[in-house]
């Protein structure tokens, strides 16, 4: 695997691999984590009259398929907001359900509940939990700022400006004790890591943005981003 596609990221002494796709991999546990898939966000907008292309679920699942194929994890955690709204799973097509089932075959699959999908039905396969603790690390959807916490929810993105040009991309945000994962879904936007919400979690600007570039990862000090 091309090492440009990944970056090392440590949380509470555990070494993770931050992948260019936006997924997080824990090699020792063969655990893959993805956050904020927001499946069926397109059709969710459609119910309100904004007819976004309905291909987002297909696209997000294809990305998930690709990263699972690369890492062959024993377990997958979907870190909350996997579905954009409470009815979103009802709108999955049979083909989407089949894809999900294939992805789940032969591995543990844990749906962490999020604010968009607090009640997940049983028929989606895998198990449902509010949080999962493994060793010194706990996985939950909404960050609390606790040490050892890996969360999603905020959709971090970072912007860098140079000589009148700027680039804005999704990123992992981490200070070594806690981390916030980028949103994985095809239709997920982002919140600047300079937003107050991040200050509440990290208590200072002493954290790093692991930015998902076009072809490689970049570690950039949060203080240098917008």
């Amino acid at each position: 695997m091309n090492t440009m596609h990944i970056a090392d990221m440590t949380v509470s002494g555990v070494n993770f691999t931050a992948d260019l796709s936006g997924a997080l991999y824990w090699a020792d546990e063969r655990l893959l984590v993805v956050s904020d898939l927001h499946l069926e966000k397109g059709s969710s907008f459609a119910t309100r009259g904004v007819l976004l292309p309905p291909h987002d679920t297909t696209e997000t699942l294809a990305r998930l398929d690709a990263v699972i194929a690369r890492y062959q994890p024993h377990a997958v955690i979907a870190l909350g907001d996997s579905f954009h709204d409470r009815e979103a799973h009802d709108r999955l097509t049979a083909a989407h359900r089949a894809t999900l089932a294939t992805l789940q075959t032969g591995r543990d699959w844990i749906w962490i509940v999020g604010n968009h999908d607090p009640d997940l039905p049983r028929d989606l396969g895998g198990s449902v939990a509010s949080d999962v603790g493994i060793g010194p690390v706990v996985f939950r959807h909404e960050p609390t700022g606790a040490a050892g916490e890996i969360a999603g929810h905020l959709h971090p993105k970072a912007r860098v400006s140079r000589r009148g040009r700027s680039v804005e991309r999704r990123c992992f945000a981490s200070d070594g004790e806690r981390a916030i994962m980028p949103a994985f879904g095809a239709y997920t936007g982002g919140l600047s890591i300079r937003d107050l919400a991040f200050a509440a979690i990290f208590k200072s600007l002493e954290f790093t943005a692991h930015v998902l570039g076009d072809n490689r990862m970049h570690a950039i000090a949060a203080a240098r981003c917008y």
Partner: protein
Amino acid sequence: MTLDHGGGKAYLWAVPPPNLDSSTAPLPDIFSRWFARRGWSPRAHQLALLAKARADRSALLIAPTGAGKTLAGFLPTLVELGGASPKARTSGLHTLYISPLKALAVDIARNLETPVAEMGLPIRIETRTGDTPASRRQRQRRYPPDIMLTTPEQLALLLASDDAPYLFASLKRIVLDELHALVTSKRGDLLSLGLSRLWTIAPQVRAIGLSATVAEPESLARFLVPQVVSPPPAKRRGGVGGGGLFNEDSAGDRHAASPHTRPLPATQEPGRRGEAAATEDNNSAIADIVVAGGAAAPVVEMLDTRERLPWAGHSARHALGEIYDLIKRNKTTLVFVNTRSQAEMLFQDLWRINDDNLAIALHHGSLDVGQRRKVEDAMTAGKLRGVVCTSSLDLGVDWGDVDLVVNVGAPKGSSRLMQRIGRANHRLDEASRAVLVPANRFEVLECHVAIDAVNENAQDTPPLRSGALDVLAQHVLGRACGEPFLADELYAEVKTAAPYAELSRADFDDVVDFVATGGYALKSYERFARIKQDKLGRWRVANPKVRQTYRLNVGTIVEESMLKVRLVRSRRGGSGATGTIARGGRMLGQIEEYFIEGLVVGDTFVFGGEIVRYEALVEDEVYVSRANDADAKVPSYMGGKFPLSTYLAERVRVLLADQRAWKGLPDQVREWLSLQSYRSRVPGAREMVVETFPRADKHYLVCYPFEGRLAHQTLGMLLTRRLERARVRPLGFVANEYALAVWGLGDMSAMIRQGRLNLDTLFDPDMLGDDLEAWLAESALMKRTFRNCAIISGLIPHRFTGEEKSRRQVLFSTDLVYDVLRKHQPDHVLLRAARADAATGLLDLRRLSDMLTRIAGRITHKELDRISPLAVPVMLEIGREAVYGEASDELLAEAAEDLVREATGT
């Protein structure tokens, strides 16, 4: 705005000594007496339009500024409404006037009141704009005025209602002002669709178009009449058109005006492209054309500067003193520049040397509206000596006493230049005077050929657009908001609009499908449809909310995301934002969001005529403070909106190729070109010269396509991809209007010499195949183009019903939609619309394609040991211009390096 112009409204109604043609129809007495009382007499073209109206013809009037165009347009209406006894008159809306500018509509309304009042005509005139209060809008629907003055967007809104047939059934005349400006954009498409609807509702209506001189008046004249649809639609009277008061007349031929019967007015002077390519088949109905003659030819010269002519740049700072002298020597001077930042810079520089304290003002589209109105009022009142302005003043309210136009920088196109020069021409019989001030040596060439073009009255306005599918989508939704429609009928109706005359049924059906359910391959949105068919197959809007959203989002002008700029006191550190506002920060205007995104706190730039420091971004406001720096750190020259016209580019190439013609050029420029032919080669009229040379530790390739910076930027993108594959290891490129420079680590001279790099292959038109596809997938310009289509088509509303939420909360990123759609449904109608835009818009693909075809087999390579004189200007842009390239990883890597440096303490 005050209307005290000293000489009354002379500019609007002005007439020179009588030049009455005895054959023209006489005016009713009341009008003749009014003219006589004023000491005026009607002009030939004004009477000609009246005659056209009496003959029940639609007509296009081509006339320069100051020719009394507006009166000509309204004369038929005034005579019809004023001549008939009140009893004989049918009630209802008689004339609809449509202007591209709200301010113009308001101004014209005021000016119409004068003759109407003085002749005591029983005519009610009202404007309808975005500012019209809701109560009056309602009243206007129930009791329409005789004459309504409005904009294309307001017309669309009026048509998108159940009572449109009631409101418009009585319509007799449509007057379209500044038509040449309207038809070049999607607003023109929207207007044409509005006309197509009016032709159905009011078949008796006749149009008068008012236009500046254009290259192809015939295509403009087609815009004014319904294009023939064959076979003709079956039931013209059915449903929608019913209930009109003039339906008896509709048996008459709406398509009567044919090219064969088009009388050529005596005064017609054909443009450069010569006469009429009026097609002989029946698919092209055309309005009569009336050309106003008698305008004095403008006097245009190039500033013969005493200073050294710059090699590059757009500031024209070298000529500052001379521009100031021009303002000083004349009563009122309009100083046109091409971009907002040029205007800012020049304005600031002029005030720096303004020892005489001349009243010089600034006017551009990003300034606060109140600020702009103030300048316009001062100008009207004759209080200003000079106004530095951008295309924001290309159109609009006429100001009497401008006696000189100065055009700083590249003229870009000859028609464009002539229209600007015309702003000085308030009296037809006086020659307009203009001085062109080139800002660099290439611009000298451009100014030189532009003056020749003006002297020959050669026009280079673009050909009529073909109608955009995103605008059609908006129209279809608008139609469904009014009376329900049958697809067959709407298709026939839409094809009567000239820009949509060639619309295929398949495209139309795709658009209807898009409006209904998004037009996706997955048919999962049936239950969310915005428009639905009833039992009779008629489409109607699915629920009232769709109608509301349509009404809020009508229009085709997608503003760049703008942020307000507020001047605050410098506050280094601390973030007490609200406190600063309380201290009374003044609003300076608006700035593009993408520009601010490129800044870091502390960067300085020019805005509102001064150098300001970027302090903070608070919600949608940019806080800036006064900076004491002499120069702004971040250049904000983003290039003009309009590229050099193909026509002027061609003339520049011809000028370059003909050494004998150089004697008309300033010495400095002639010497520069002579040195180029000695050191390298001056490009021939049809060839393209490619130079390669080393400089410092890099290798450069410079070529001279002369196709405008947009096409060059696209070429640069595609070339670097190819050079990458050829292992040249390109690092970047920079483009200007004339040339493109690419640099890299590989020795391109050696590679060409050894046959490892073939220029014919490198510039092969096949780059518009796979390379283009690959680039479009990630191009930020393409994404911007797509965003416009997504908004105009109504896919992504930009204004929402209910309480106005912050834009940031509700806007869905169209970039994400683009990525997903491109991958999963590459032939979607919106992607097709975006591609059509890319051909002529930000990517200028059509021009690039024409150029590649033109130079095929005509590339001359010069291997040089150093930079050539001709290459200097574009090479100087490096560092001054943002180096173009979309390699985001490099930028991110640089920022990451900072962290490394910090960590290692280096």
